[in-house]
Structure formats: C-alpha cells, structure tokens
C-alpha cells in the first residue's frame, strides 16, 4: 500500500520534472534559433524531410477522409432531405477539426518519429558531443532547424489535407451522388466563415506543429544513447504527440467555439 503511494508519488514527480525540463528545452530552442533563420538552407533541408516527404500520405489520407465524410454524411442528411448541405458538413468538419487533428496525428507518426530517431541516433553515436567539442551548439545546429521546419510544415500540410478532403467530398457529392455543384459550393461558402472556421483551424494547426516539433526534438535529445533507448524514445514521441494533440484540440476548441458558455 505504502509502496503503491510511493511509486505514484515518484511518477508524479518524474512527470513534473520532465515537463519542466521540456519547458526549459523549449525556451533554449527558441533563444538559439537565430541560426536556423540566418542559414535558412538548414531549415529548408528539414522542411524537405518533414514536409515534402509527408505530402503523399497527407494528401491521400485527406482525399479519402473527405470522400468517406461525403458518403457517410449523405447517408444521414438524405433522411432529412438536406443532402445539398453535404458540402457544409464536409467543409466544416475538415476545416475546423479533422484537417488540423488528423494531419497532426499523421505528421507526428510520419515526421515526428523520424526526427526523434535521427536526433536520438546522433546522440547514441556521440555526434552531438562531437559538435559540442567543435564549439558548435547542437541545439542551434541540429534541433532548432528541425523544430522550425515542423512548425512551418504543419499548417501547410493541414491546409492541404483540408483542401484535398473538400475535393474528395466534391467528387463524391457531385460526381457520384449527383448533387448540383453550384448548390454544393454556395451552401459551403454561406456556412464557412473565414475568421471563425478557416483562421481558427489554421491557428490550431500551428499550435499542433509547435507541440509535435518540440516533443519530437526533445524526446530525441533526451533519449538514452542506446539502440533500445532510441526505439523507446520514438515510441514515446508518437504516443505523447497524439495525446497532446487531442488534449490541445479539446482546449482550443473550447476556447474558439462560439455560443458555448
């Protein structure tokens, strides 16, 4: 009994301690990120690995999610004779929620895990220490460009996801189900507000990008310098990122949604 309480306490302290270290790490990355903008080619390289390489999975998943939303939405909307509003359903659910959240989950597992593994392996093979020896700050040279690449890529990927999803919904709605394309678009434009829907989704995706990037780089930097440690850090990145994204989504949605007081 005492032992159970003790282990709970130790876990609590460890979690809190880890959070504090991560916050300090975050601050360190922000303050030492001048190099990733002055030598922007470093960041561009990382955008290539994090963003461009994730394009296919993001766009294909977006297309499929949009098509499924269209089919499922039609099924229910048809009962109420409101199948013309399918565009609204697809656009709002993608722009507000699914676009940022699903692309963040995909980004965490596609790019976040790769970043963690890369930095973890650099640590395991003592490349980071070697850099330190040569008076190169590994945080400025290795971590910050990856962090900023994630922050820049994430909103763009989320926007692409939403756009592809809406295209998928359009394909299902107009080509398959034969909804009038004019009605599809005009209903959508009447219902989707730039400020409250598009911009809020964009803000969400930026926040998710920051969260995933900092988690991925921190886990890599913090990994035990062994093969097992790197593999565990990679797993932790995906799990922690997914949980953080979903939790942040709840918090952000609660703040952003109108009419709920």
């Amino acid at each position: 009994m005492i032992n159970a309480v003790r282990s709970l306490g130790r876990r609590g302290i460890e979690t809190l301690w880890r959070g504090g270290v991560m916050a300090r790490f975050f601050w360190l990355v922000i303050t030492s990120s001048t190099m990733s903008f002055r030598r922007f080619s470093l960041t561009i390289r990382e955008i290539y690995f994090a963003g461009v390489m994730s394009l296919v999975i993001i766009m294909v998943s977006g297309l499929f999610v949009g098509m499924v939303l269209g089919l499922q939405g039609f099924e229910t909307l048809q009962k109420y004779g409101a199948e013309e509003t399918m565009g609204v359903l697809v656009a709002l659910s993608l722009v507000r929620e699914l676009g940022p959240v699903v692309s963040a989950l995909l980004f965490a597992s596609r790019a976040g895990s790769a970043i963690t593994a890369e930095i973890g392996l650099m640590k395991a093979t003592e490349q980071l220490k070697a850099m330190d020896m040569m008076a190169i700050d590994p945080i400025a040279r290795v971590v910050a460009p990856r962090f900023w690449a994630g922050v820049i890529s994430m909103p763009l990927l989320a926007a692409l996801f939403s756009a592809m999803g809406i295209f998928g919904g359009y394909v299902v709605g107009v080509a398959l189900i034969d909804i009038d394309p004019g009605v599809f678009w005009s209903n959508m434009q009447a219902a989707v507000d730039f400020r409250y829907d598009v911009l809020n989704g964009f803000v969400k995706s930026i926040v998710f990008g920051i969260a995933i990037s900092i988690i991925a780089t921190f886990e890599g930097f913090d990994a035990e310098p062994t093969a097992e440690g790197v593999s565990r850090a990679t797993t932790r990145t995906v799990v922690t990122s997914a949980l953080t994204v979903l939790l942040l989504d709840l918090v952000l949605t609660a703040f952003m949604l109108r009419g709920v007081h």
Partner: protein
Amino acid sequence: MERKNIDLMVGLFMLMGITALLVLALRVGNLGSERVTATYNVETHFDNIGGLKQKAPVKSAGVLVGRVTNIMFDNDKFQAVVTLTLDRRYKFPKDTSASILTSGLLGEVYIGLDAGGDDKELQNGDKITISQSAVVLERLIGQFMFGKAAEGTADKQPEKAESPTAKPAEKKAKP
C-alpha cells in the same frame, strides 16, 4: 539529393500549402464574397425575436442588405432591441417596416425589410418603428386549436355570428 532540387521541392511544397490555404479562404470560406465596409446602424424593437441570432442576414426583397449585429433586452419596455448594420449603398425610407421571417419551415431566421413611402431616408442610429415579431409556431398552433374549439361551439349555437378564425399575424405598430 542535390541542394537545388531540395530547394525546388520545398518551394513547390510551400506554394502548394499556401494555395491550399487560399482555396480554403476564398473558395470554401466567405472571404471571396465582397466585404461591406461602409455601413450604418439602425435599431428596431420586437416583442419576440424567436430564434433570431447575431449575424443573421437582413434581407429586402430577398437581397442581402445587412446583418444583425447586436441583440439586447430593453428592461423598461420588456422588448428585444435588435441592431441592424446595413450596407451604405442601400437607402431605405423612414417608414420601412422590419419583420422576422424564416426561410422554409426549418430554415434560418432572418429579418426582412419592407420599404415604405416616406421621402426621408433612414440615417445612422435611427429607429425602425414598424416591426413584426417572429411567428412562434406553438402559439400559432394554440390559436388554431382555440379557433377550432370556438368554431365547434359556434356550430351548436347558430345565432352567434362568424367564428373567430386563427390569424397568425401579430402586427403591432409602435410610436
């Protein structure tokens, strides 16, 4: 991969992402529709606004001319005070009447403006004095039932004159 190619791919990626954002803003969202900058505010009073909400459209002859920007409760008259923000391009006479309407049976609630014949035009901060409240479906049904019941008694007593029929309009003019 060569540096140039990486730059090219990243450039393409960023272009695609920005295009997607623009598509979301312009094609999917309402940013593409023209923004009304020059506006003027008009106040109206209603006994009952039903399901009217902020940002509900204000239409005249079916054309969007403005939006509802504020809804308050007047604690002296026990009425709803609704502020309409209208486009400056559209001028309405002073005796314009405002009514709360619903598009379709379950559609959105909006305010319809019917122009009168006055020479003077509504200015910023003016009040629309003639208003028609929202039709509350339950009340309408209640009135109808009441009317039916009254009809039934009227049949039994033929000496009584015409039975009262259910009238949905709750028109009320205010000074």
